[in-house]
């Protein structure tokens, strides 16, 4: 929690907002993935480490394929935590967030999972198929270890739901910019997104970052004002799929520069 709050505050003093980058852990394998995440953390302010799952139903084709590659390389929860722990050794201050579907967490055991993740150096959790209704216990456990549960809010979330989401969330809320799955989009509904994020911040009083569909610097510039941070996933994963580290670095550079005023 502390690392996350510090990150927001330190950047805000510099007139910046966090660039949050998602990649799937152990894609294409755990060894290569470590190097990729190290490169990502040179530019990103926070990183979202995706836990591979056989049925990622909130994800589009790009990230689905990343999950398949990771699983066929033998990835599992232990290996993801190992990867995090190695990253943490090198990057002491940057927040690391785990993003994973609920079943592998449930099977690993909620309590053990949260403990081991903390031990590895994780700061927060996003579980896309865990609603506030089902996730109350999980949220309580995460908060009790001073880590951050991060819940999703969507354009379809009613005010009443947003209130619930605010209650169970830790340092920030993750606003899903589209009704849909992850994946690159040409254009986004900037005005609506900014309006909706303001609504969520008003209701919950919490920082709100935006993700799903963001792939280019102009996406960030076009709606810079309302969100407190920007998540980029599929565009990055695509470069990983193409095994193009130079292109990945260029993309990260341009995205990061867009998050500075």
């Amino acid at each position, binding site marked *: 929690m502390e690392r996350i709050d510090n990150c927001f505050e330190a950047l805000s003093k510099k007139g910046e907002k966090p660039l949050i980058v998602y990649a799937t852990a152990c894609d294409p394998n755990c060894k290569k993935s470590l190097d990729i995440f190290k490169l990502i953390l040179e530019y990103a302010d926070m990183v979202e480490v995706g836990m591979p799952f056989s*049925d990622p139903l909130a994800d589009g084709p790009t990230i*689905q394929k990343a999950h398949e590659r990771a699983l066929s390389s033998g990835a599992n929860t232990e290996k993801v935590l190992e990867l995090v722990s190695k990253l943490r050794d090198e990057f002491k201050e940057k927040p690391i967030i785990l993003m994973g579907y609920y*079943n*592998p967490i449930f099977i690993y055991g909620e309590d053990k999972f949260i403990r081991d993740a903390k031990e590895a150096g994780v700061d927060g959790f996003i579980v896309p198929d865990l609603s506030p209704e089902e996730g109350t216990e999980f949220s309580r456990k995460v908060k009790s270890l001073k880590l951050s549960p991060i819940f999703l809010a*969507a354009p*379809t979330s009613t005010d009443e739901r947003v209130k619930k989401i605010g209650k169970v969330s830790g340092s920030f809320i993750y606003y899903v910019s*589209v009704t849909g799955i992850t994946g690159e989009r040409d254009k986004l509904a900037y005005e609506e997104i900014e309006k909706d994020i303001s609504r969520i911040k008003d209701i919950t009083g919490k920082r709100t970052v935006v993700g799903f569909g963001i792939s280019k610097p102009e996406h960030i510039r076009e709606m810079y004002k309302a969100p407190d941070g920007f998540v980029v996933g599929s565009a990055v994963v695509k470069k990983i799929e193409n095994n193009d580290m130079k292109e990945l670095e260029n993309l990260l550079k341009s995205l990061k520069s867009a998050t500075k005023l």
Partner: protein
Amino acid sequence: MYRYPDEKGKYGIYGGKYVPETLMAALSELERAYEEVKKDKNFQEEFEKLLREYVGRPTPLQYAKRFSEYLGNGIKVYLKREDLNHTGAHKINNALGQALLAKRMGKKRIIAETGAGQHGVATATACAFLGLECIVYMGEEDVHRQALNVFRMELLGAKVEVVKSGSRTLKDAVNEAIRDWVTNVRTTHYIIGSVVGPHPYPMIVRDFQSVIGKEAKEQILQAEGKLPDMIVACVGGGSNAMGIFYPFIEDKNVELVGVEAGGYGLDTDKHAATICKGKVGVFHGAKSYLLQTEDGQVTPTHSVSAGLDYPGVGPEHSYLFEIKRAKYDAVTDEEALKAFQILSRTEGIIPALESSHAIAWVIKNAEKLKNKLIIVNLSGRGDKDVNQVKEILEERRDLRIW
């Protein structure tokens, strides 16, 4: 008194709503709309009228005399003839009910998933009948295995979306349907074909299917003057079983038996026997038994019957198993294939391969069923399977009973 699901959509610890936030509002909307139509006489009358006039209900409860004689041991079997429904299986009961509900909710775009194609055909049929747009997701593997059903759906005006992700079968078709629903949730209703998925789906599908059990209860009382000793039904997701079990849950003397797909055998990893061999997990929006690895990855399944080839199972089945109200067992592909032939020859009924699993269980356990009065839910007819069985029996002559 058995009153499930509870207000959180749970059956004990099972069920619930494990879905991305985007869908939560839609699930609440569906819940509200369903509660309304449940109390709405006009809706219920319209649904009953369509079941009568369009589907052909009530379906007969037929005394299977020659099959009973084949079993011997004083066993008396009645077949609940869901195979005689329009479109050839019980799936139409739910598809029509949900399509009516969607219309009531003002949603004109319908999506569905299908494995073998029975639910897809039923949904395409209901949509054609009610003038709704219909998109059916079907795994690439199944599209090849069930080419005729693909054409059937297209003939009925539906668009079949071929799913090429994951294992390219039913579970991936469900994933893709959910992804579509997340994207088009404001205009679209997702008609799930079994008692699976997030609340309120398992309840809605059960309720629409429970017409099977209600009729069977009246019919057996009329025919025999008493309730049966046992009801046997096959379980994939478990909608036909839930439909016939539900009205009997409080009749404690009626044994309920769910038969899962044992594939090549429960000691192999090629089966779809979720309750027999799985562990509790969270999949497709609900907590229930699940076939999975030690790491919580969902495992590929196998069954000769595409309709049972699914790694999950309805949460209410998990609950009935836990409280020991129902028992669950499995039969293998080979046992089902034999039953397929035996029923054809003793009753002149070619059963669906799914339903053949229920028949096979009775055959296999005949020795232990002395003097029992049994209802088997014959959930569908086997026309769709004839080609596949022909190919298998040509290759495996040892499985032929003639």
